[in-house]
């Protein structure tokens, strides 16, 4: 049971959160201009690193804020 540091509510149990995968994947400014490969990249390609990873979390059962945290996916330690 991960203890996830919500920047607003402080550490809460994993069960209060939903996961958003890799952070900082921007929505293409002009999707229409993207070719199929670029668009597929936006839809499906996300970092899946073993080790430190910038991730999006949503404090779904708490303050309902999305936030970004850095976590080691091997040890599940949250990094600052």
């Amino acid at each position: 049971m991960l203890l996830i540091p919500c920047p607003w509510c402080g550490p809460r149990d994993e069960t209060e959160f939903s996961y958003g995968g890799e952070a900082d994947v921007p929505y293409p400014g002009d999707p229409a201009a993207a070719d199929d490969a670029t668009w597929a990249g936006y839809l499906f390609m996300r970092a899946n690193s073993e080790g430190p990873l910038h991730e999006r979390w949503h404090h779904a059962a708490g303050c309902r804020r999305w936030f970004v945290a850095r976590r080691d996916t091997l040890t599940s330690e949250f990094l600052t």
Partner: protein
Amino acid sequence: MSPSEERSQHPRRLWRHPEPKASYDVVIVGGGGHGLATAYYLARNHGITNVAVVERGWLAGGNVARNTAVIRSNYLWDESAAIYEHSLKLWETLAAELDYDLLFSQRGVMNLAHSLGDVREGQRRVNANRLNGIDAEWLTPDDIARVCPIVNLAGDIRHPVVGATFQPRGGIAKHDHVAWGYARAADALGVDLIEGAEVTGFEREGDRVTGVVTSRGRIGAGRVAIVVAGHASVVAALAGIRLPLQSRPLQALVSELLEPVHPCVVLSNAVHVYVSQAHKGELVMGAGVDGHIGYGQRGSFHVIEDQLVAAVELFPIFARAHVLRTWAGIVDVSPDASPILGLTPIRRLYLNCGWGTGGFKATPASGWVLAHTVANDEPHELSRPFGLERFTTGALIDEHGAAAVAH
């Protein structure tokens, strides 16, 4: 079965521990079930025996050592049904072929329906399976009581069981025996199984792969296949390939040994549990994948608690069974819950990953089609629909509906 039959029975000889040669015709990265099966079929089906399987840890120590060994082929879409049914057909003769008791038991796999939506999807799957030549039946609660009397069929429970799909030819096998059977057979055909060799890079000439760099030195290779469930993204990244995968923990658990009580395999998508009773007598259970990326081969405890909530609800008789051991594998989950198979942007480099939670049952077919792909430098007909390019064209093979708990 008698005590001596239940006792672990393995042959007196398994495999050699050769030093890696300078180069091989084919190097298979990953000594798991799929990698070992690929090596075996390369030798058996294509006569390619100058093959090395390089494994960073101990042979068959990844997901094949950690899974719950459920076998079935009742998938919804034609493409999935075709490859999983090919696998099931191979399973049916595999023990004899490998001369190894795989404890393969076709005791039937039941997938419970708890709502009108479940019934609709279940019927859809049964009808599709039958038209694809796959044995599939729809069970009423009375039928369920006959097949598996311990299922809670009370009408007043929170998620009453209103029916089930059933594949009689589905069942279980003993995971280690399967991997070791392939390893032993591949070894006997001349394949070098190299443990403790972690691949740290790929060597290329132009757009063509020429070898792998490992913790036990460089190994030249005419062709290379990446078959590393749980680490596909990590290893593919060494070759500069991005994959649409999320590597997540999938947890499982076993009970102590119990007198026979549970005759088949039961899955429930709605209340998230699947359970069978292995040959020795332990209950083997699993549930859904954890909610986040995790490479630590451990999951979160609440997932275990929730699956036992479901287990006790569906099987009240399990209440006093005990959890002996919990563990987790790492499953590579793809966007459409279907595997990614075939060629890569790098010539002579081949890919087999993204089986998610369905990998074990697919082991024979997976090895079969990958061996074909490596030998012929083109996808096998069964794997063609599962190419990486589908994520660009949008031609996904979405098994989520039928595979919420895809075991």
